[in-house]
């Protein structure tokens, strides 16, 4: 996107597991305010890249600059506090807690009550609690689950659990939201809802980087796309360019992308 500053700048990223080079010399750049899709065949290193960006894996080499800060080497909780939130490919909700509590937990890096203040500063803590609760309910309404707050998280259908996970990530007040296969397991109606939600998230000024296999979603929603294969970037650009790129088509075993 011309004019928009680069928010996330990944260069030379390397991550291996034993002999498996999941990510080798990866470059990726995401501009502020855009919706950026990361696609590629299975095993191309997409989720590994997300995991390294969010701090769950430590990169072997390379740099990840987020708004000027180097994220490499930071622990996951610090990266979240710095403004990078994520969802997981296999939904990782706090199953035994309520939906509301799940989202309230997302607010952790933006609040400050600790054991001492919880015990001794009753009033200040109560105010923070109230704000956290209200924010959680607002976010649940935003993702389309206005009435699910009190339910146990594990009781929700799969598609709704995904939304809760997104609401929880939004509660951290991120500048960059990483979504790992958000449309996985969704039917067409749910997928349409998701596309709408992604748009609404962008309207709030949040930059999105999403891994997705559903090409309909990718083509509809993305401003730019980066294509991975064998752990490295093979193409990056606007959806229309990517759809015509020979290497990309070859990587997907000869099929044309818009026939997904």
């Amino acid at each position, binding site marked *: 996107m011309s004019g928009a500053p680069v928010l996330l700048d990944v260069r030379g990223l390397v991550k291996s597991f034993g002999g498996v080079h999941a990510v080798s010399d990866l470059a990726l750049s995401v501009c502020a305010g855009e919706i950026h899709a990361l696609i590629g065949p299975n095993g191309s290193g997409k989720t590994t890249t997300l995991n390294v960006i969010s701090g769950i894996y430590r990169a072997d080499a390379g740099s990840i600059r987020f708004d000027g800060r180097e994220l490499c080497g930071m622990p996951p909780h610090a990266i*979240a506090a710095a403004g990078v939130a*994520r969802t997981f490919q296999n939904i990782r909700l706090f199953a035994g807690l309520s939906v509301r509590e799940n989202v309230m937990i997302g607010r952790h890096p933006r609040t*400050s009550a600790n054991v001492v203040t*919880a015990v001794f500063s009753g009033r200040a803590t109560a105010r*923070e609690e109230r704000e956290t609760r209200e924010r959680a309910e607002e976010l649940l309404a935003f993702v389309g689950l206005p009435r699910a707050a009190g*339910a146990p998280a594990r009781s929700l259908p799969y598609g709704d659990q995904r939304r809760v996970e997104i609401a929880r990530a939004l509660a951290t007040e991120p500048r960059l939201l990483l979504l790992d296969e958000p449309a996985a397991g969704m039917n067409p109606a749910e997928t349409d809802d998701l596309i709408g939600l992604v748009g609404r998230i962008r309207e709030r000024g949040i930059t999105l980087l999403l891994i997705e296999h559903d090409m309909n979603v990718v083509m509809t929603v993305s401003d730019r796309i980066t294509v991975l294969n064998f752990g490295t970037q093979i193409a990056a650009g606007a959806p229309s360019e990517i759809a015509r790129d020979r290497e990309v088509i070859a990587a997907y075993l000869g099929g044309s992308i818009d026939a997904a």
Partner: protein
Amino acid sequence: MSRANAGALVAIAAAAAIPVVFRGSDYLLNLCVLAGAYSIAVMGLGILLGYAGQMSLGQAAFFGIGAYASGWLTTQAGWNFWEAVPAAMALSALVGLCVGYPCLRLSGHYLALATIGFGIITQLVLVNWKAFTNGSDGMSGIPAPAIGAYTIDSYGAYFYIVLACVSAGAYVSSRIKATRPGRAMQAIRENELAASAMGIDATRYKILAFVLAGAYAGLGGALLAHSIKFISPDSYSFDASVVFLVMLIIGGASSVGGAIVGAALLTFLPEVLRPLKNSYIMVYGAAVIAMIIFMPQGLAGLLQAVIARFSPPPDPGSETIAARPSAQRS
């Protein structure tokens, strides 16, 4: 005032009546003091295991450290009760820190075993460090608390001190649960990876949970030591840690009230069933198995279910979305 808070105040008021009601019986009052001291230790375990999900089977070791620290300070170093007990609590908390830190990378069985190992080593130290603890002969002559010239010698009066500590412990634990630190710990329990991705420093909260568990157990142990006035290492064994765990499970792992109820129940039940002792003993283990199969949330969970059943239906705000067809999503 919320229903839970009102309930707590009623419970405290009722407990305050105990020394009056049981006035004649030193035996019963002693049991109440015992139950109170145990419930403090179990509440501590409730924070570590119930909230943060860290399987610790070494709680009796902290209990013993608190008891011996306070005992030694008052019998050998000339401290009084009011100085020694908080110091013992601080020492146990410090040991909790020292145990929690190396255990950070461990989870599940490894953690359980490391805490067991810590417990066994602690007990062996208590038995063998004779200069400090007097070994298997035990430490006797632990003094009762005194205020000026007046010694609080009766079980009834001492019970009020214990009750105050139980109430304070319960208050702190429930405040933790209802606010950000408690949620953070529960998030770690449910899914540590997701918790750290949401900005929670799991390391910090796990160590905190260990420190709190140590502090609570140390307080309980010290209070007990000054009540029964004689302690020996036999009481602080792995089996005792198991008893604390069972008390917590039966009461309800993440419930403050449950911890107290579980401790009280398993303190009184053996005594109440003493005439039937033989049958009771067999039932105890079977009850644990049955409990975990049919009532994994313990008695607290049972109470919650009962209350939910008899409460007015929840407002539409909390209705499970699963009941509604997805076409009606707003």
